[in-house]
């Protein structure tokens, strides 16, 4: 999405609520709760970015969460598309209250969402050091990744190094670098002045 033209001005809303509709809140909460409960085939970001591009662009933010929630539940066999279709035709629209409670899971929600946590990432000695010039590989991966199109082929300078995380789809930590790009190198001679910083896994760089 970075750099695309034609989306117009940034529209802001005064006194915006956290959620505009009940189902937005529930799409978000169900996405998180089904993650905690191990009911999904894929994580939230991965599932959202796996939506087909036309659906993605035609959907609002929480519509994307809702669609990806459904995909992840169906993918894991937790629900079937047919039973969701059938139920959607007759359901009383609104939240469902259960008689059962799960205090242990409520405690987990507070621990995971609203409690101090350890700093993620592990020390990794990568191929590059702060100050090195690096170029983002030209590539078109089909699998989930975190390398925006607009930096591919562009050269920048490593601004931060030394920490690693597993790349999506991997369990092994891999060095991630914060790379500083000149706006002119990204967008051409008439670009604004200034710099852009982006975190990139080592596999994206040469």
């Amino acid at each position, binding site marked *: 999405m*970075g750099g695309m033209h034609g989306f117009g001005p940034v529209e802001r809303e005064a006194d915006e609520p956290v959620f505009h509709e009940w189902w937005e809140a529930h799409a978000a*909460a169900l996405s998180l709760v089904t993650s905690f409960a191990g*009911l999904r085939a894929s994580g939230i970001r991965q599932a959202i970015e796996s939506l087909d591009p036309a659906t993605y662009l035609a959907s609002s933010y929480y519509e994307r969460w809702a669609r990806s929630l459904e995909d992840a539940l169906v993918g894991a066999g937790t629900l079937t598309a047919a039973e*969701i279709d059938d139920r959607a035709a007759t359901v009383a629209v609104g939240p469902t209250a*259960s008689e059962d409670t799960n205090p242990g*899971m409520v405690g987990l929600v507070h621990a995971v969402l609203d409690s101090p946590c350890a700093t993620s990432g592990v020390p990794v000695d990568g191929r590059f050091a702060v100050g090195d010039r690096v170029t983002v590989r030209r590539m078109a991966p089909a699998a989930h990744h*975190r390398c925006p199109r607009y930096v591919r082929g562009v050269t920048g300078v490593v601004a931060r190094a030394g920490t690693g*995380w597993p790349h999506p789809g991997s369990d092994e930590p891999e060095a991630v670098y914060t790379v500083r790009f000149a706006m002119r190198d990204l967008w051409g001679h008439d670009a604004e002045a200034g710099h852009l910083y982006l975190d990139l896994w080592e596999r994206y760089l040469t």
Partner: protein
Amino acid sequence: MSEHHHPSPVSPVERRVAAIEALLVEKGLITSDVVDAVIETYEHDVGPLRGARVVARAWVDGDYRARLLADGTRAVGELGLGGAEGEHLVVLENSPEVHNVVVCTLCSCYPWPVLGLPPRWYKSFAYRSRAVREPRAVLAEMGTTVPDDVEVRVWDSSAEVRYMVLPLRPAGTEGLAEDELVPLVTRDHMIGTAR
């Protein structure tokens, strides 16, 4: 939509969310108190006031500021804050020479424990597409003109790090206490769309 005073018609996505929730509850896979706990956390507890407390502390306490810039996750933990989407928080210091602004072009990554869930404009295609290409123009539209002699640094937080801006302490606030500084800090200051 909130600008309407009558309820929106039932949409297909609304029906599907209702169906999914009903099925998960009936199968005994989830309980509604857990769903409610998530919603209440972000509607009532975790929001930009959290980040404003962090900023105010950093403005009055130089040692805290240094710890915050060295390891944001650990330093906000000192104030009892942290959680999902804040596991590796990096705090970006504005200065008279530098202005930082944060965007996520891939989804809408955002430091939830200090800012809550992101506003619609942050998630909009317009902000996500333009903030990396013409940040000065976007900021000017939003009411913040960054002087030409100030370097703009855009941070596209598309991987594991989540970013928050530590704004400049406003001139003339030297006499204010930490609690009095908190209300001066807005969400826009901490995203970098205000200076």
